[in-house]
């Protein structure tokens, strides 16, 4: 099997918004993703201490693998425009990865 080049989109945002961001990504055609929870940190909007009640001061990290940069950019822009531009804390960034080719992306 070969290693083929792909792009990984990473979105970090408020835990409360997880379901809404995932809905948007699915509506944009994303079919597979990974979610990592219980993240803490800090940004220009303040500290995410993870010590509030009911997931309030926590973040989530959503990762998706897509083949083309154009696809990746479209996903990132959709999430940015709807959530990150003004309303909610978070960031979207892109990494280059090489995945073990399994023919499913």
């Amino acid at each position, binding site marked *: 099997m070969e290693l083929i080049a792909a792009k990984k989109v990473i979105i970090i945002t408020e835990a409360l918004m997880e379901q809404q961001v995932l809905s948007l990504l699915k509506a944009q055609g994303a079919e597979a993703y990974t979610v990592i929870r219980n993240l803490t940190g800090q940004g220009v909007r303040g500290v995410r201490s993870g*010590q*509030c009640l009911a997931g309030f001061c926590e973040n989530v990290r959503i990762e998706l693998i897509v083949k083309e940069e154009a696809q990746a950019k479209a996903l990132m822009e959709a999430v940015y425009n709807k959530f990150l531009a003004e309303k909610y804390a978070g960031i979207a960034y892109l990494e280059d990865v090489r995945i073990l080719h399994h023919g499913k992306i």
Partner: protein
Amino acid sequence: MWEMVLAGLFAPPILFFVLGMVSVFVKSDLHIPPAMGTAMVIFLMASIGITGGAAAIESLKADPALIGVIVAIALLAMFLGPFFAFMTGTLFKKFMRTADAWACAGHYGAVSSATVALGVALASEAQAANPAAQIFAGWMPAVYPFMDSSALIAAIVLGRMALINEQGGGEKADIKKVLHLTVFGMGVWVLVTALFIGMLSAVYSPGELSRALLFFDGMFRGIICLFMLEMGLAAAKQIGALKELGKHAVKALLYAFALPQVWGLVGILGAYAIHLAMPGKLFWGDAFVFATLAGGCSFVTAPAAMRANMPEANPSVYLPMAVALTFPFNVLIGMPMWMIVSQILWGAA
């Protein structure tokens, strides 16, 4: 009467609450893991629901006309929720940004499960100490969703309308989403469904129900202590965020302390009016729990609803006000006061 107040103030749940706050001040690493927090909420809501449902059936069997009072209280709750939200928003708008004012309005109109759970604990304690007297019938928590949904919907609709007016455009309120959250959100959903379970089991399977109640009723007193410990920790941790209130901190502090007490008293007066119209069915413990419904300031459902529907509002305003200011004041000052007023009105003092 004073013995009852002292008994209330030095009850284990209150002391655990104080312990939680002290633990943060002394920088202990004591913390309640999130999963445990969720487990406690599920247990407490299920416990209040199932014992409330069983109690409701008992009371209805003894006096079927009680249903009239329950409907009246539910309608009163459905009115008071938006009323409190509207008054709070209008008051707060005078010194807060529009978005923050209406976000807080939702918090003060909606219901706090923690406050109600504590109210139920204290009321059932008073009933258990006086088995002969009629103090707390147990069904009052059932009207929770009537006040909670209506208040949050009102606050969000009014808030989004105000923002549209201010900005000349913007998103409208998504009422369906808010309704879904306030009816099917974990806490209230477990409470209401457990209530129906309690009622059904009480009618058709009382033997099994009484065995289940050994767990749900038996463990309630202890779990609420650990729950109040978590609340104390949360309240003290939010105190730091208070400085973000800036120059309005003093006004916000006064309102955070005073407003819920007034709403609680309004609740008691409303319950008293219903009691005068239909005497012999509503008791001071019921009115006291209604006060906790009215005066409590939501800090789990409302913040989530506001973050989703009013992202323009600053969580560092509404969260610390509800958690660090109002809840401790309600626990230490509000509860005893509402208890005394209920007892005086009902002539039990």
